[in-house]
């Protein structure tokens, strides 16, 4: 197909794949015309407020509702006893465990839901919640997962006593959830026995929270006359929620409608089903009126999906040239009081086995134990259920520590261990098939861009003057796009995703997907995919998501799965439409299909200039002049079950300067090269990377949800919890290479989580690189000024000479 100036112009008009067009959703948002859950107001709507436990672990002796019920405007106060007859005082979790909707006889974490007040407005509800008197008997608390399996440890989950399976295999202690192992233990042991060099390091990914701008909430509305239930909800997976609500309520799935309207950030915080949703639904069914529940910021930080609390021990075996021969990892995973993680059923440690990273490691073995503690449940956020951030943190720290041990350059050791481009598709020792990658090219490009040699020279000069400068490198491999349904399911539903595209007679398009945007720009990206596939301008393509009554069933948006899975479904559905359009074109032009060729937005008869039909003409024909035997209309649905995950990767460099006397770390430079295969909208990708890096910066440099020894959550408000603003956030430099995925219809991979996953170890590596020169081996994040100062002080580095 000859590309003339005319066809190039036509192609540009489509604003399809590769176009950095502005986001279609933004005019609405920047005018304040978004429609979030809290914007929804229904006639007769009541408000719910939670009564929460002040204690980390306590028995409930009694609950007195009288004073609360006496307050004018209060309609109901519900406790576990009220939900018992409905069997709704407990609910199943996505990890096969169960979670108390309202505390049943005891509370297992601070801020746990104990009772709910339903009142005329949110102020009366909040006042009444304070009037509910709960008499507690405090119990011993476990906050340290290392003590959870002590023989004399208090039993956190009395409901599981005597059960040797909490949904993820055999457990060996009342506070034990699961043991998971992967890899070849014997071969790994052998690698360590034979190794010239071995290193071992304890690493902590502490408990953090993604803290989306919008907290969680819902409006539940049960229509008694029609017998149907509509719930507007902050959900990243509305279809899965519909199935869960159906199973819990006994209503037919066709009478349950879940709507995710605009969502103000998810980051995994909005995947789970929370007690607030359940009690709002119950209250609406009981009272016959809509019920709204909106979390406060403190509730959000204290009770809904957190991330990590992963206590890892990494070990590497290598030869003296720095070639890694074996990796061994032991993990203690603190899941809080209920196992409300949201990993695929068969993967209690998610995709942690990606921990061999970008390196050709012949032998590896991973052992993970999950335990209960008296902390909030629901490790879903920031890839916590998938554990990729933890895995990348582990291998990227370990390879740096190996370089330090061997006195080798931290870039050089990576080049020596990289999986080479010709090894793809690559089989990892822990069982993954990496689809594609070119790691050396990416790292070389970044090192040249930042003048790595010059930086190392400068660092040595500063070291001589006693100044701390650190250079962090991270060359990560991600695993996104869950996933092949044979490997991944949630509650037995395979992790496919879907798209339904309908072309109207005049050639514009409405398309609906099973995913749901939370700021990722789906309305723009999906439209660009369809624009290129169908030759219809992306401005004329309307994308709708989040309403389970209109959109096809899908597993939702998290784990960077929208483009790998939903985007693939979109391309495949569009191709079905184009195939039908080709038949219509052949019919109209009276030629055979083989005589036609596709050019940007039309089918042309080969070798006969002027004999052509545009997609717009074909759309019209689809509704009035189709070949004999063909049904009318132009639409298609695709349920896409990906053959594999996609494996985006990147090379990051971070340069920091540390003030010896105050411990303050200044990020001087951060250079991020990402390879996510085909780039559908480069501007959106760049925006995603900026956002992910800002969150990585937040986690590495300051965020922490700390529990004191009594189970009291410290720092669950913006008084303490670090959310970087434009003031603190460093300037990002972004770059890319393109290594397409061989199995994705567009060659695209996921991207949004790469900067988070790769960014965190890059910051930590930079801070530790500064310390390494002064004899300090490893410091865990968060690298707050205080933490860094403590390291400086302990090593006498803050002394003025």
């Amino acid at each position: 197909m000859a590309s003339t100036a005319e066809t190039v112009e036509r192609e540009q008009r489509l604003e399809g794949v590769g176009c950095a067009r502005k986001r279609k959703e933004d005019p609405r948002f920047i005018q304040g015309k978004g429609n979030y859950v809290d914007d929804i107001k229904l006639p007769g709507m009541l408000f719910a407020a939670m009564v929460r436990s002040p204690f980390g672990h306590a028995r409930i002796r009694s609950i007195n509702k009288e004073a609360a019920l006496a307050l004018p405007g209060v309609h109901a106060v519900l406790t576990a006893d009220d939900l018992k007859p409905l069997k709704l005082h407990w609910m199943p979790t996505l990890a096969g465990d169960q979670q108390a909707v309202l505390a049943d006889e005891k509370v297992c974490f601070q801020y746990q839901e104990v009772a709910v007040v339903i009142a005329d407005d949110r102020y009366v509800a909040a006042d009444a919640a304070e009037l509910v008197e709960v008499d507690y008997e405090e119990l011993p608390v476990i906050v340290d997962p290392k003590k959870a399996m002590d023989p004399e440890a208090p039993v956190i989950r009395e409901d599981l006593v005597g059960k040797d399976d909490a949904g993820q295999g055999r457990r060996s202690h009342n506070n034990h959830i699961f043991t998971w192992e992967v890899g070849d233990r014997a071969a790994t042991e052998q690698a360590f026995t034979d190794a010239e060099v071995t290193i071992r390091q304890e690493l902590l990914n502490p408990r953090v929270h993604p803290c989306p701008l919008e907290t969680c909430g819902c409006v539940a509305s049960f229509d008694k006359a029609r017998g149907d239930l509509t719930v507007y909800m902050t959900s990243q997976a509305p279809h899965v929620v519909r199935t869960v609500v159906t199973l819990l309520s006994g209503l037919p799935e066709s009478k349950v409608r879940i709507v995710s309207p605009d969502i103000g950030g998810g980051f995994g915080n909005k995947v789970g089903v929370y007690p607030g949703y359940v009690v709002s639904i119950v209250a609406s069914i009981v009272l016959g009126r809509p019920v709204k529940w909106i979390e406060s910021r403190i509730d959000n930080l204290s009770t809904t999906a957190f991330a990590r609390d992963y206590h890892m021990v990494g070990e590497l075996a290598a030869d003296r040239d720095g070639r890694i021969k074996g990796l061994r990892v032991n993990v203690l995973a603190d899941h809080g009081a209920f196992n409300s993680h949201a990993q695929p059923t068969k993967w209690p440690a998610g995709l942690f086995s990606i921990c061999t990273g970008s390196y050709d490691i012949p032998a590896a073995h991973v052992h993970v134990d999950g335990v209960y503690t008296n902390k909030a449940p629901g490790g879903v956020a920031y890839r916590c259920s998938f554990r990729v951030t933890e895995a990348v943190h582990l291998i990227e720290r370990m390879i740096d520590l190996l370089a330090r041990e061997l006195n080798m350059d931290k870039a050089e050791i990576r080049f020596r261990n990289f999986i080479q481009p010709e090894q793809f598709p690559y089989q990892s020792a822990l069982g993954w098939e990496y689809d594609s990658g070119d790691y050396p090219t990416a790292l070389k490009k970044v090192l040249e861009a930042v003048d790595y040699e010059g930086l190392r020279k400068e660092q040595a000069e500063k070291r001589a003057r006693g100044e701390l400068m650190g250079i962090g490198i991270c060359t990560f491999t991600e695993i996104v796009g869950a996933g092949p349904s044979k490997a991944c399911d949630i509650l037995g539903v395979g992790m496919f995703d879907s798209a339904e595209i309908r072309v109207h007679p005049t050639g514009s398009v409405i398309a609906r997907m099973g995913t749901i945007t939370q700021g990722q720009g789906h309305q723009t990206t999906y439209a660009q995919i369809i624009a290129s596939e169908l030759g219809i301008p992306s401005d004329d393509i309307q994308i709708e998501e989040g309403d389970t009554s209109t959109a096809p069933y899908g597993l939702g948006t998290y784990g960077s799965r929208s483009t790998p899975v939903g985007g693939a479904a979109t391309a495949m559905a569009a191709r079905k439409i184009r195939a039908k359009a080709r038949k219509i074109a052949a019919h109209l032009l009276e030629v055979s299909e083989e005589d036609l060729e596709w050019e940007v937005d039309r089918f042309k008869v080969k070798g006969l200039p002027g004999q052509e039909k545009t997609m717009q003409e074909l759309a019209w024909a689809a509704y009035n002049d189709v070949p004999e035997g063909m049904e009318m209309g132009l639409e298609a649905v695709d349920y896409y079950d990906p053959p594999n995950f996609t494996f985006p990767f990147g090379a990051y460099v971070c340069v920091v300067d540390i003030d010896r006397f105050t411990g303050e770390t200044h990020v001087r430079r951060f250079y991020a090269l990402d390879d996510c295969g085909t780039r559908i909208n480069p501007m959106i990708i760049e925006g995603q990377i900026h956002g992910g890096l800002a969150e990585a910066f937040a986690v590495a440099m300051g965020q922490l949800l700390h529990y004191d020894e009594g189970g009291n959550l410290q720092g669950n408000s913006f008084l303490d919890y670090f959310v970087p603003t434009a003031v603190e956030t460093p300037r990002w430099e972004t770059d890319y290479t393109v290594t397409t995925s061989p199995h994705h219809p567009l060659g695209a991979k996921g991207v949004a989580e790469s900067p988070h996953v790769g960014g965190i170890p890059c910051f930590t590596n930079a801070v530790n690189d500064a310390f390494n020169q002064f004899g300090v081996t490893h410091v865990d994040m968060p690298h707050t000024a205080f933490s860094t100062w403590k390291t400086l002080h302990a090593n006498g580095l803050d002394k003025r000479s």
Partner: protein
Amino acid sequence: MQVTVEKTFPIEAPASSAWALLEDIRAVAECMPGAEVTEQIDEHHYKGQVRVKVGPAAATFKGDIEVRSVDPDSRQIALTGKGTDVKGTSGASMDLSARVVDAGDGRCELTGTAEVSVSGKMATFGGRMMNQVSDQILRQFGANFGERVAASGDSAAGEPSSEPAADRPQRELNALALLWSIIAGFFRSLLGRGKSTG
């Protein structure tokens, strides 16, 4: 969230008078700002409450007091107080041991060690001020205690006398006033002019 505070208060009265007051749990409780004994269960167990006022908001902690040991020979008493805010948002407990030491010359010293732990909202939001708050509460306790012993007169033993109105213990702990005294104490310590006792 737990802190330990130790304090010593000089008392302008003989050790026997101070001990007589210290043995009287109701009287001791009333020396704590905002605290009172509401009911005696048996010889060693009482019920009590502490009222705290933060600006316009008032909270009442209700709880139990257990006298763990009374030793007249060494003039030492140990008790535990444990309570929760009636709204169920916070809990607090204190292990207190106090001793009266004869300082001669008709004077004595009251030495107290308190292990205070709080949970719930108070631990989350008030945690960082626990040391200062405990310190200030004990300081007020010491002052009230000293005044009451002095008012009880040298000879009186056991029964608290009718004290002048000005010396009546505060009926609630005023948190804003407390906060102010903490801030003032902080600046005084910065200027090096005054140091807290103990």
